[in-house]
């Protein structure tokens, strides 16, 4: 056998499920909201992005293979197509399961000039995790992100739907404490917000 084949790793993502094996998890409300979102577009394909946001909410912040399969099933698209879309965009958590709160530190130009690296190093030290990792208690995920476009408030960070900035190390610690006490996952809350703003008042 060619070495090329033995060298390659098997895809660790779950394979596409057959329709009868699908474990559909969308809530009744989620299905209704998806129908409303579909009605905004001339075809179902265009609803893949909103559908994935909806799935991210319904599946607790992580787009697992099951979640992608369900979106594909409900929109009559192929699994591979939807997976391709989900892995392209950085705000879909399709590769790693995020913690309860995702802390996104902007390190782009203006934040780079205004101490974002110090803030990141502080977080790395404090949480014991690096870019893209999650704390062992599943509480925080740390990510360095590209421009959040709030350069007037550099260094800025995003947690869920909220921007914070300018943030110093002490404010960061306070924010971490507040987040620890927050019951709800800001990752799920964020996805819920994104779905909500796309729906009209009478569609909610």
């Amino acid at each position, binding site marked *: 056998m060619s070495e090329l084949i033995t060298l390659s790793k098997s895809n660790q993502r779950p394979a596409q499920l057959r329709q009868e094996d699908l474990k559909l998890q969308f809530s009744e409300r989620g299905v209704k909201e998806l129908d409303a979102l579909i009605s905004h577009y001339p075809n179902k394909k*265009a609803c893949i992005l909103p559908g994935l*946001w909806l799935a991210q909410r319904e599946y607790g912040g992580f787009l697992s293979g099951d979640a992608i399969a369900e979106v594909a099933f409900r929109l009559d698209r192929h699994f591979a197509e939807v997976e391709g879309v989900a892995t*392209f*965009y950085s*705000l879909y958590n399709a590769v790693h399961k995020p913690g309860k709160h995702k802390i996104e530190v902007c390190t782009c130009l203006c934040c780079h000039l205004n101490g974002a690296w110090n803030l990141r190093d502080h977080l790395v030290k404090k949480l014991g995790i690096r870019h893209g990792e999650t704390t062992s208690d599943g509480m925080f995920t740390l990510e360095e992100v590209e421009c959040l*476009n709030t*350069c*007037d408030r550099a260094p800025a960070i995003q947690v869920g739907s909220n921007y914070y900035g300018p943030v110093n190390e002490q404010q960061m610690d306070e924010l971490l404490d507040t987040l620890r006490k927050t019951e709800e996952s800001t990752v799920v809350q964020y996805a819920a917000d994104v779905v909500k*703003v796309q729906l009209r008042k009478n569609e909610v």
Partner: protein
Amino acid sequence: MSRLDSAVIGLGRSKLPFSMAEYKLLLEHSKDPTFRTLDGYKAKGGYTALTKALTMERSAIVDSVKAAGLRGRGGAGAPAFLKWGGMPKEKKTNHYLICNADEGEPGTFKDKELLENCPFLLIEGMTIGGFAVQGDVGYIYIRAEYMDGAKAVRNALDEAYAANLLGKDILGSGLNFDIEIHMGAGSYECGEETALMSSLMGERGMPRLKFPSAPFPVVSGVFEKPTLIHNVESYSNMPFIVNNGAEWFASLGASTKNSRGTKIFSVSGHVNKPGNYEVEFGTPLRELLELAGGIRGGKLKACIPGGSSVPVITAEDVDRAILGYEEMGEVKSMVGSGGCMFFNEHTDMVKLAWRSALFYANESCGKCTPCREGTRWMVQILERICRGDGRPGDVELLKQVASQIDGRSFCPLGDAAAWPVLAAIRVFPQEFEYFVEHGKSMVDSIPSLIGVP
């Protein structure tokens, strides 16, 4: 018409003397929370433009866009008329409007403020557009990070629907027009108009073939239908053009060669009062810096005047630069999207070039080879230099790689990646040479400001 005369007939404009060089047209009421509600917006003269537009001929509105000399505010600065006038006059199929609110250019945050504080300007502007080009549905593509802006637009849309300013038979004119919000999911590339349309159609946000290889979006855009696509700021100018007339709009910025109206500049970096400042075209760049409270932490060293994609200019050029699409060309830079970053003397240009290159490497969609491979190569070379392991000839190599990306990529992202690096080498060659030779920066950075990545 003099500037003060024109101010009197402006949409709810105050007659107070102008403070400094600011000319607040779009942002005039941005600090007023009631401006985000329909009642507050109407009290400031809102929706008079739509009422007026609905009594006008469609072609008259399109002509006024031409006469006003409005240019796209997204970065390229193409005349808006090319799009408005290019839409089919006879409607054979659905027409779409798209608002590009996927603002991702580092240094720019003007659309954020417009979405959060002036959502009705955008909605009214889009509705006028919907009438003028016979649109059926308008999509506002907002980047998902902008939740505050998206929420403000959602509330505004709901209010507009309730008041029959959107939906079926708008204000009894027989016009049907819907606006939907479509949230992105984190991709800089989706700010490019064809990539945005891919993303709106439920695909990976990759750019599509452009004219002349493919028809313009106004012929075949989103869902293969005629599409009018503009930036938030471009649409937000429409109520003023309709209300006050194209001649009035064209009188703003008349001192410049071909830039009309006002432009919002997002000033950030080492300035005392970062924020959005709206100025008339033709204002000196120096005045913008003064508006933002001047430089902090040292002397002015350099400026990137229009978002990270545009070439960097020196402090001397800041003194003579005039804000205008053609005028900025004289200092070998561009107005771009208006993300104006000022840097003080402690800024290391090599590290800045590295961070800029890293941004484009991260955000390259991977479709074409020059951009996908070139941006990564540039990061590798710059990282090597920043580590202190620079090899002789690295600067030449970097120049070569960057110039091979420039003009050879599928979409402008490649050019945007190459320009800042090429400009940094052109403007500050000694810094690059010093870093390669000595393995350390010639700038004494302030440690508290710049950590080592």
